[in-house]
């Protein structure tokens, strides 16, 4: 993955997102050691302090836990925490933007729901 350095999202958030994805798609499993700030810095060509900030966000959310002197490891409930967070924050945020856009475009409530339902069905079919 390449970071989008010009994106509105801060780099450390992008790092945290990327790590979450790695956990979700099981590249890193529970109780496995996650990348260090230096590895991340090298991978993404960023300052290690920025990378550390991304790691610390996940640690604060208890996706990761620290082992003194050994680094950070994936918590047992990591997947659930991430999914929950994404549902709450990301999804509701996106829905909000979607709704605002719909209001501006004069799209009715039913029409919007239908659009969402269709898209949901289509993606599910594609993934199969």
């Amino acid at each position: 993955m390449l970071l989008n350095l010009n994106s509105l999202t801060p780099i450390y958030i992008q790092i945290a997102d990327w790590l979450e994805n790695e956990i979700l798609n099981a590249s890193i499993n529970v109780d496995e050691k996650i990348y260090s700030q230096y590895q991340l810095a090298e991978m993404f060509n960023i300052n290690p302090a920025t990378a550390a900030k991304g790691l610390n966000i996940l640690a604060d959310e208890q996706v990761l836990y620290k082992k003194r002197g050994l680094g950070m490891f994936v918590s047992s409930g990591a997947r659930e925490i991430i999914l929950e967070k994404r549902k709450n924050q990301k999804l509701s945020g996106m829905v909000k933007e979607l709704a605002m856009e719909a209001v501006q475009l004069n799209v009715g409530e039913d029409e919007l729901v239908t659009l969402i339902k269709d898209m949901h069905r289509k993606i599910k079919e594609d993934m199969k």
Partner: protein
Amino acid sequence: MNVVSCQGVMKRYGRGNALRNLSFTLAENSITGLIGRNGAGKTTLLSIIAGLQKQTSGEVRVFSENPFNNLKVSANTIFIHGNMTFPAAMTLSELLQTAGSFYHNWNNQLAERLLEYFSLDPSQNHNNLSKGMKSTFNMIVGLAARCPLTIFDEPTSGMDAGVRKDFYRALLKDYIASPRTIILSSHLLNEVEDILEDILLIKEGEKCLHMTVEDMKEYAIGISGPAAAVESWIAEREIIHQQTAGVNGTYAVVRNVFSEEGLERARLQGLEMTPVSADSLCMYLTSKTKGGIDHVFS
């Protein structure tokens, strides 16, 4: 521990002041970007930190010592700058060898591999190098010295884009391999911002901002929309920059002190909120007037 600390530093040249009342500290093992326009006093400040020049007043401490004419500071600091000279009579490999004799942590293998990577002929004389190649060589010396305090003043001047990219990558990798305190001065922030931890922004010899890069990205917010709406919104706020945009439109940059709800309401009023990149913010903060170049023509 603070590697560098400055308290009320002032430097006077003749009648003008190159630095005024500058105070800041730099922590150990960090990469700080010293950003400012040409003539802001970057080189003067770095010269004082490196012990080449003496401040007119104020206190400077490097490794808890006064850096001017200080052998210990000199031995633990390397200052790579544009006016750096090496004797023409010596070949590059002789120069590397000499550098190795001076610097305690010198990594000769790194120096030789970088020399090879950047296709510099070790038997060549420093004199015969082009401006960009000189910068490249100086940079190699600066990296391989692995000094606890490493200072690069506009290190990439004359380098082509590819070499610049390689340099910043090399700097980061070697920093990770051997953490130290690095100060990197540049007037082009966007080129270096990813590898920086902190930014020290100076304007006309004074400190403007000193914070982490991430904080800086959230420091300000850009608002654009119809002139009247923007004007009313930004009234009584700290305006950093303001310019006209399109017909009857205004783009303004203000301190980001808004809550989520506040921003929400603004959006509903048809105003567009955009983040301000660190690079643009530095440009706005260091410009002479709030309106930029347009001010001249208004």
